[in-house]
């Protein structure tokens, strides 16, 4: 079932706006992540869709599930599945009773027979691989297991919309990875429409069909992970997704100067702020004629496909991060405290109001 939001806004008393009027469309069967820093309004948005919060009356926004207008429908009648960050299992009920709960509170004429409930619950438990734990109490399960119970519970009523609020936030990295994969599988298998909230960009990008990046109560951009990374709509999205190095200085006579750092560019005169991804920074033992960016290695982490190098210098507002191939790392023989020079391969610029300007390859790299 598709979800359509138009002009959904929310403010809390005098505390201010939690949500600017938001428009969002999620296609049937789509898995969309809501990504943003804390306070960006992503959880509020999710809770409004669930019916746990009421949107402002002015502007009069609408929420549509398919063709059904659910704006004024109570949460208990929206027929959504909701998964809470801290699972919110009923701790006085066994795993079985937790999963069965939604079925047992159905109005009598809609309620399946107890045999059918039993069968359905076991099918769900099987799906989440917890059939052996049916008679356990939540406190006797690990965090990952509890979250799986919570998911099974949310799915028991066969909702067409599944909403997840930071579902993996409280779990450790390894379990999180596993559950993520498993959720994606489940989603593809059952074909419901999912919306989940996360502050973890990796999670959002890996799991979602599309990601809505939010900040200050607004959706900054909603797009596929690939498009978000490669064609950010604005500086916020660019900076929020992935690591960014900053180079800010005054351009005069085709040279950008920032303390001891110099970079030859073809940019117009004036103050400029350039942004570089870590993989867009090359390291060299000597300065090139185009770039003179001296720095000291402060940390080296050779774990993973690439080597991450942290750089510091007086002219940097914040330390830089560069990634290089293992071969280059070995060639340079990097050690902590070593002094060397950073060479930009390319950089990105944004206008004062955050709109992107064409990214340009640095001259040095082109040379």
């Amino acid at each position: 079932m598709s979800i359509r939001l138009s002009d959904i806004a929310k403010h809390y008393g005098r505390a201010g706006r939690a949500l600017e009027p938001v428009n969002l469309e999620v296609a049937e069967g789509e898995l969309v992540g809501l990504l943003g820093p804390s306070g960006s309004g992503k959880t509020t948005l999710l809770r409004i869709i669930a019916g746990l919060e009421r949107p402002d009356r002015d502007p009069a926004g609408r929420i549509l599930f398919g063709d059904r207008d659910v704006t004024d429908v109570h949460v208990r009648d929206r027929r959504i599945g909701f998964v809470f960050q801290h699972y919110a299992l009923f701790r006085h009920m066994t795993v079985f009773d937790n999963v069965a709960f939604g079925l047992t509170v159905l109005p009598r004429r809609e309620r399946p027979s107890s045999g059918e409930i039993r069968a359905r619950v076991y099918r769900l438990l099987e799906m989440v691989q917890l059939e052996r734990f049916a008679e356990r109490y939540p406190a006797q399960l690990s965090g990952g297991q509890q979250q799986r119970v919570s998911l099974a519970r949310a799915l028991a009523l066969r909702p067409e919309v599944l909403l997840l609020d930071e579902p993996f936030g409280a779990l450790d990295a390894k379990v999180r990875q596993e559950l993520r994969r498993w959720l994606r599988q489940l989603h593809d298998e059952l074909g419901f429409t999912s919306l989940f909230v996360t502050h973890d960009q990796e999670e959002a990008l890996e799991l979602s069909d599309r990601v809505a990046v939010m900040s200050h109560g607004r959706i900054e951009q909603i797009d596929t992970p690939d498009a978000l990374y490669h064609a950010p709509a604005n500086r916020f999205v660019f900076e929020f997704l992935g690591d960014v190095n900053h180079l800010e200085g005054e351009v005069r006579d085709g040279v950008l100067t920032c303390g001891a750092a110099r970079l030859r560019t073809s940019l117009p005169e004036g103050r400029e702020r350039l942004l570089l991804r870590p993989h867009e920074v090359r390291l060299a033992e000597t300065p090139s004629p185009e770039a003179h960016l001296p720095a000291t290695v402060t940390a080296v982490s050779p774990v993973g496909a690439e080597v991450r190098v942290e750089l510091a210098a007086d002219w940097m507002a914040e330390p830089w991060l560069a990634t290089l191939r293992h071969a280059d790392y070995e060639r340079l023989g990097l050690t902590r405290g070593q002094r060397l020079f950073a060479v930009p391969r390319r950089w990105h610029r944004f206008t004062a109001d955050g709109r992107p300007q064409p990214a340009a390859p640095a001259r040095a790299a082109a040379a």
Partner: protein
Amino acid sequence: MSQRAARLALPLPARTQRVLPGFGLSLGISLTFVSLVLLLPMTGLVGQLKGLSLAEYWAIVSDSRVVASYTVTIGAAAVAALANAAFGLLMAWVLVRYDFPGKRLLDALMDLPFALPTAVAGITLATLYAGNGWVGALLEPLGLQVAYTWVGIALAMAFTSIPFVVRTVQPVLEDLPPEVDEAAMTLGAGDATGFRRVLLPYLWPALVTGTGLAFVRSLGEFGAIIFIAGNAPFETEITSLMIFVKLQEYDYAGASAIASVVLAVSLALLLAINVWQGRFIRKLHGGRG
């Protein structure tokens, strides 16, 4: 007692590593106090009981009038405790879940029965609920007599134990995360179902504890009841009065015998509450403990 001496005095499990100071001091103070103030006087009771043979003891505590007083006391205490369970639950709910003008006042008012001396409560309730009192005058025409009947006893008991349920349920309700409500609602539970099947079980231990404490307190209450009970034999005589009567007859042994029954029942109930609570909590928090 020094810590070392304490270690020697008690066979302690080896795993107990006492990092924190003050074991000896606090043990010393506690044991001294408990022995001198609580246990030593109880020996007086035991001393009196020793003067009785088992048959005599049984004859005193199973006297039909005394037995009738147990029935009255326990019945009224049960009614009072149950009424308090409902009243306390409602008050705790309203105080925690809703905002309304006068809420702070209502909250403060809940402790009144503990702050108000029971004798004051007794004469006030008797004055209010007597046939010519403010409330009694309204109830009497309806054929409902409160003062000097069994209802009056239950009323006095209920009044003096109001705070128990409210104050045990309130913090639990406050600490209940909103997700519990929300989870129930997203699963389609209505108000009544959600409350009964989801919220109530969370409040259950506190509710039972509070009700149990209210019951125990009601068993022993004397000051407030004596003014409003009719003290008619077999009908409105409470057990505390039977003890009082025995005292008037210089029958210390008899008084002690009846007192020992009340004491045993009360202590057993308190212990049961403690143990039950421990079990319940263990179940909900995993196999620890």
